[in-house]
């Protein structure tokens, strides 16, 4: 829909807004959420005949109903946030890293390999140290390969990272068969269930606390790195314009390699936390699509790690709430996904109306 500059004015056209004051921006977001809840309520009543208020209460209880549910919510937030933090520097550099899924798998696979192969032969503290190094290295290498090709020969990083996901998935599938217990099960099961070798320590009696603390530290670290360091500045310059970056003497190739190394390494940590910290197993689906959800998280938060806490919270809350709805009301879980879809649609839409303005031909009517 190219808008030719003809005499006939189009029905409406879109123009970029100047930055809105914060209260207007948040007003639009608030309105979007209220609108989304109304549409969800209508959809709920029409499709299932359930009481929408009851559905919302159930969603809320699904996320916060018991202390266990709150811990699970925090754990889900932590892992998703970790992957989102990982993709953020690359995206800020306009490097479309869609390979977080594969990088998490690579990190997880390295962790699992250490746990299985070294489980009985080295002391636990040493094993955990090896796991940390191995997982970070594996994730970093998985991120570095497409970055290297991009920097050297300007290959398309979107396709490259995407395809690296499939390679990682197949590698995991292969090693699952190698290590499966019992033979033919197609599952590794819980690794070292009796000896707990290589399991990350449980602190304060809470299984998920360590993950949450590590990711909290990562969030602050990533915020400082992007906002206040020379590296962070270089990343934004390369993201804004590669030519400018070259002009001011930034070695773009070096920045690309360094940033993807970091991106992959943080994904590797996510793999470590999943395999060593909570699941203690490896499957091809252990990343669970977080590598792609992270793309949305990062964009919605405009690459600000602190805002990303909010967006991951929103997505994890919706996810947990949706699963509770299907359990309590006996609805197909797709129904929860429909509600999540409606809410996300409005929230993403509100970002559009914050950045852009609609002008109609006849009058100055606005939509918000």
């Amino acid at each position, binding site marked *: 829909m190219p808008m030719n500059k003809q005499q006939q004015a189009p029905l409406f056209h879109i123009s970029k807004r100047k930055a809105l004051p914060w209260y207007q921006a948040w007003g639009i977001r608030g309105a979007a959420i209220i609108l989304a809840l109304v549409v969800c309520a209508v959809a709920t009543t029409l499709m299932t005949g359930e009481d929408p208020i009851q559905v919302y209460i159930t969603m809320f209880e699904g996320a916060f109903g018991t202390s266990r549910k709150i811990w699970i919510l925090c754990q889900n937030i932590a892992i998703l946030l970790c992957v989102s933090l990982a993709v953020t520097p690359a995206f800020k550099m306009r490097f479309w890293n869609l390979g977080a899924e594969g990088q998490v798998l690579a990190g997880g696979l390295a962790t699992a390999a250490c746990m299985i192969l070294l489980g009985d032969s080295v002391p636990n503290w040493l094993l955990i140290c090896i796991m940390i190094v191995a997982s970070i290295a594996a994730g970093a290498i998985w991120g570095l390969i497409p970055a290297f090709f991009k920097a050297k020969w300007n290959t398309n990083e979107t396709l490259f990272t995407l395809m690296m996901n499939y390679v990682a998935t197949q590698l995991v599938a292969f090693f699952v068969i190698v290590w499966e217990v019992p033979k033919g099960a197609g599952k590794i099961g819980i690794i070292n269930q009796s000896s707990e070798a290589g399991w990350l320590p449980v602190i304060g009696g809470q299984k998920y606390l360590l993950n949450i603390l590590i990711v909290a530290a990562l969030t602050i670290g990533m915020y400082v790195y992007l906002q206040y360091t020379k590296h962070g500045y270089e990343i934004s310059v390369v993201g804004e314009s590669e030519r400018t970056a070259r002009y001011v003497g930034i070695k773009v190739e070096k920045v690309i390699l360094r940033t993807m190394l970091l991106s992959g390494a943080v994904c590797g940590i996510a793999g470590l936390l999943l395999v060593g910290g909570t699941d203690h197993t490896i*499957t091809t689906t252990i990343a669970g699509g977080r590598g792609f959800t992270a793309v949305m998280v990062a964009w919605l938060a405009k690459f600000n790690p602190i805002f990303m806490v909010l967006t991951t919270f929103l997505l994890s809350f919706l996810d947990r709430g949706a699963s509770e709805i299907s359990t309590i009301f006996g609805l197909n879980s797709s129904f929860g996904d429909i509600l999540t879809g409606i809410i996300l649609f409005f929230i993403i839409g509100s970002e559009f109306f914050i950045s852009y303005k609609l002008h109609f031909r006849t009058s100055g009517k606005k939509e918000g």
Partner: protein
Amino acid sequence: MKKILALMLALAMVFALAACGGTETETQAPSTDAPATEAPATEAPETEAPAAGGIAKEDLKVGFIFLHDENSTYDLNFLNAANAARDALGFTEDQFIYRTNVPEGQECYDAACELADMGCNIIFADSFGHEDFMIQAAKEFPDVEFCHATGTRAHTEGLDNFHNAFASIYEGRYLAGVAAGLKLNEMIEAGEFTADEAKMGYVGAFTYAEVISGYTSFYLGAKSVCPTVTMDVTFTGSWYDETAEKEGANKLIANGCKLISQHADSMGAPTACEEAGVPNVSYNGSTIAACPNTFIVSSSINWEPYFEYMINCVLNGEAIAADWTGTIATGSVVLTEVNEAAAAAGTADKIAEVQAALEDGSLHVFDVTTFTVDGAAMDSYMADVDTDADYTPDTEAISDGYFHESEYRSAPYFDLRIDGITLLDEMF
């Protein structure tokens, strides 16, 4: 900024599409019609010890963990059985809590713990890969009973509240095999091929005990009425791969197989048979609607008797067996109606006769006088019953003249490669 916008719109569309796709396939969600009014999520009452003299019926809650939802035939079979057990025992809808789409990972542990928090006295999981996580949860909630279908570890784990269950589906497959053998005899008599050419084909999922036990019992059933029969087996490497199953069946038919059966969950093999006009013995339920001319009979597992058993145990304060194997006698192994249009005359009567012999113990499926391995009769076989990483054979399975399948644990462990069956490939 355009890129951002494009990406966001694309994402929004993906979500919207995914949501739409979901509604179309939503067929008959088992409990959508009657709304569950109260949400029992927050109360989380203390779970009472079920062992101490049982509990009142109205206090009992049962949690179910399903790998997928009703769109999967595998999980639908469990869902239907759970609904049937609920109705048969007279429980209300909010006493049976279903968690669908629970992956075989930490989510299973979380789901089990949440169900325990909600006050469930029994928690059941339906997929093999759930087992480790159920055990983890069972250790944390000693007062809650954890029951798991198809698993192998209950008898070695030493937990009072973790139990495995399966069914002696090999008996059902043996009966289905008898129907197959009769059909072959009929075709030989009609002069369609000679007795030496009587070859069956079998599409299996994976080359391991559950499937080996299944196709061997099917073959022995056929051989018991048609002594010259042989069989080719091909594997797909997946429990559900419609294309691969269909191709497998077509390959077998092209290789001269006169009758096809399968152990995988899609309609691939049955539809291939219907198109080629080759008789088919099905699994998991009747395929007569799609294959009216070639469907003979089908065996399947009915889980309702187990659900009723575990619930009654808890109600009466009795211990649930570590391994429970449903049989024809318990109603766990069932055969569909025989399709008279495709089956040989007298099939139903013969099945009834063989079934009676199986039930009174005069006939054993894996009778060592009926098969040989590498040309020799078996009088001893150490099976891998206790799960370990190295598949160490640990239990003598042959005694009293037959292989004792599903007796030392509920999940199958018969993995002998007997003569007369040719494996075209292997898939783990």
